[in-house]
């Protein structure tokens, strides 16, 4: 068990090194930042000064090493556009995205698993058929359209929920949260649903098909032959076996909730890192793009690590 963890952490470290290399390479290959930072009225002296100041005159390996060392210390460089440290900008924006992603993930996993179980157990019921048909629509509609439809219905027509922004936020020493105020919570609902809807339908369909597969297994037939109640069979015997493959896909999906929050954040004017990233791309703000790439990869690697550990926790066959 311990050696398994060590191996996984080492692998995760390797992945991060490679992503770090890709992120760093952007500095050298995606245009010359000096061009972008200095206006048209610049002198060669200005260019040389900035080049030395940013360390761009040093050899590639030295730059890479400095980049890594700085990244580990939390120093992700200075934004070319805003002229402020990237770490500071991201720290401002990250709470918004993380809270939105958490709400969407809870929604996607909670509702997805429940509906998946329901439609598997009542596979021929009318409600199941309706859920399955509606979910098909949910998968096929693009995120921005769902967002706009929700805004139209709940903000414009019914005027129940806000259509943009985070509402009132509380500052908890560097972390701004919307969880503590009514308007903050209300503001989370629509974007949360918009972002999580696709993952929710995906998880639901996956849980359903895995559960149907598990319900055909011999040990379920044997459990039934022993006279166990349907409740015990479905929730004690079948559900746990269903979860093993579901966890893999769910883990990856949660990663993409964070990574692809961009569209939802744009639709709802959500002040998160997605919006920051879009702006960074427009202005070729490479330090911000590199930091964003690193941040997302750290999250993916962390989620994968958690998934691997959950596997072992659920399936005793992997423990020996």
């Amino acid at each position: 068990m311990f050696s398994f963890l060590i191996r996984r952490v080492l692998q995760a470290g390797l992945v991060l090194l490679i992503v770090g290399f890709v992120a760093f390479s952007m500095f050298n290959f995606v245009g010359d930042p000096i061009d972008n930072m200095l206006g048209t009225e610049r002198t060669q002296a200005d260019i040389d000064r900035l080049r030395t100041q940013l360390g761009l005159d040093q050899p590639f390996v030295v730059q890479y090493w400095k980049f890594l060392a700085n990244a580990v210390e939390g120093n992700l460089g200075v934004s070319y556009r805003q002229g402020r440290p990237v770490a500071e900008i991201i720290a401002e924006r990250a709470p918004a995205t993380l809270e939105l992603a958490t709400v969407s993930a809870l929604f996607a996993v909670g509702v997805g698993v429940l509906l998946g179980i329901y439609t598997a157990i009542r596979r021929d019921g009318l409600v199941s058929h309706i859920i399955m048909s509606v979910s098909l629509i949910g998968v096929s509609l693009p995120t921005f359209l769902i967002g706009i439809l929700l805004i139209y219905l709940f903000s414009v027509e019914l005027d129940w929920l806000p259509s943009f922004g985070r509402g009132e936020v509380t500052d908890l020493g560097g972390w701004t949260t919307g969880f503590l105020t009514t308007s903050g919570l209300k503001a989370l609902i629509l974007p949360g649903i918009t972002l999580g809807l696709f993952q929710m339908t995906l998880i639901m369909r996956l849980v359903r098909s895995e559960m149907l597969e598990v319900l055909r297994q011999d040990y379920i037939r044997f459990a039934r032959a022993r006279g166990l109640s349907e409740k015990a069979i479905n929730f004690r015997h079948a559900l746990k076996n269903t979860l093993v493959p579901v966890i893999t896909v769910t883990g990856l999906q949660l990663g993409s909730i964070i990574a692809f929050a961009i569209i939802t954040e744009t639709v709802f004017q959500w002040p998160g890192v997605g919006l920051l990233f879009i702006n960074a791309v427009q202005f070729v703000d490479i330090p911000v793009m590199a930091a964003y790439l690193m941040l997302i990869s750290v999250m993916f690697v962390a989620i994968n690590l958690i998934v691997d550990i959950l596997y072992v926790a659920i399936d005793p066959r992997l423990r020996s």
Partner: protein
Amino acid sequence: MTLLDIQNLTVEYPSRHGVFKAVSGASLTVEPGEIHGLVGESGAGKSTIGAAIMGLLERPGHIAGGTIAFKSDLISGLDAVAMQDLRGKKISMIFQDPLTSLNPLLTVGEQLMETISLHLGLSQNAAQQRATALLERVGIPDPALRLRQYPHQYSGGMRQRVVIALALCSEPDVIIADEPTTALDVAVQAQILDLIKDLARERQVGVILVTHDMGVIADTTDRVTVMYRGEVVESGTTAQVMGAPNHAYTKSLIAAVPRPQVKLKRFSQISYGGRETRFAIEDIARNWTRVETQADTPLLSVRNLEKRFPIAKSIFPGHSTYLTAVDDVSFDIMPGEVFGVVGESGSGKSTVARLISGLYPLDKGTVEFAGQIVSDPRDKAAVMQFRRDIQMIFQDPYSSLNPRMRVLDIIAEPIRHHKILSGSALTKRVHELLEQVGLGAAAAAKFPHEFSGGQRQRISIARALATQPRFLICDEPTSALDVSIQAQILNILKDLQDHLGLTMLFISHDLPVVRQMCDRVAVMQKGRLLELQDTETLFAAPQTDYTKELLTLMPHLEGLSDEGLDI
């Protein structure tokens, strides 16, 4: 008092193509302490009767007629709740495959205690005591420790004991055992059957033993009911049905069973119901190019074969642990000989076949074929020629054919690979082969799923013959087949050897089959070759204790009728 009384039971499966009668008008009774065998080939409806008793018919199957009574209370047609109360409490069931019958994510103790608490309403402590006692009862040593373990930490036989313990949780009156020993080794099979016999005798449990294995029927049951395509064709005491069968189907079924005592020239094939399929060995022999070999030098010799598989890998090579699957095995096979390898699962017999054919790389040792070393992968020419000269027939006719390929391509693949024929000549060759194995040229355009198990094994044989090999490796070629189909396939293999002079390596765990097929037999245990003898000598005078034990464990089939045997 009669425990179970089934009268005129009919089970129907409605479908778009009409109603399929899985069971029609079947009657049988089970008395306390009696083991009632239910025998027949696949599709006979024997398992359906078990499922109908338990109220566990797969939808849309349902009881369309007749009655099932338990202790003179009618239980057919009870609602789901009443049925659930009966299941596991009064009537228990044991399934075929112990590897899949237990939930892999719960400990054995959790599964036992759950069932005990449900039926007996005991406290946690009392349930645990009862679970320990049950494991002890079914012969599992150190039960207190074993309760805390997961199913994958048990061997196959041990798991089947756990399954039986689970079936016994609430002292049921009737146990339905559906092929309880089919997936087990002979030694374990004998133990499990003894356990079932003990239960019937000591606790007066009535047992319905569903099986396709006549050996199990003859050795274990008191009464037997023979089924054919959903109907009961014969029923009576085991001695009477096995010794003096009345019905033509029973006669042909019994005649098809391989005998452990005498070697037959050919197997008697089931003629009932017109299921015999032609095999045109003369046609094959006419077009066969024989390679002359010296009769007195071995065609295949293997020397000091060794294969290790890693069990636990470590970053440091020294810390990895290995299982030695094949350990210093050497033997010679003479031209035209059928060389048998027997042993229990895990003895390394299949690994030997895979090492010889090059499916696994060797760790140590050499394989020599017709005087040439063929185990060196760098000698590509020798390996290629060798691969053309040897072909394999696998155990499972379902997974050994690619389901996405047409039969034409399946059989043509080895021919194409060795660039023997191409274009229309190739198609013609495949059609001929299909005609010869009795499937007809039209089969070429179909996919494997359109064929039965026996037909698929014929496709495997056609594929193996496609390159005109000199050596066939048969790895349990009939273990997954019904007796009548087994008889057909074994006769085909005998024909191949007689008419084409093919040399064979025949791997099996089934000693009666080995006695019928092989000239010499090697006995393997835990990767080592224990004993190598002429077949008749081995069966008459085994040298090692292990072989003696194996021979005593095989079914004896003493009461079986000799009618229709080709001795």
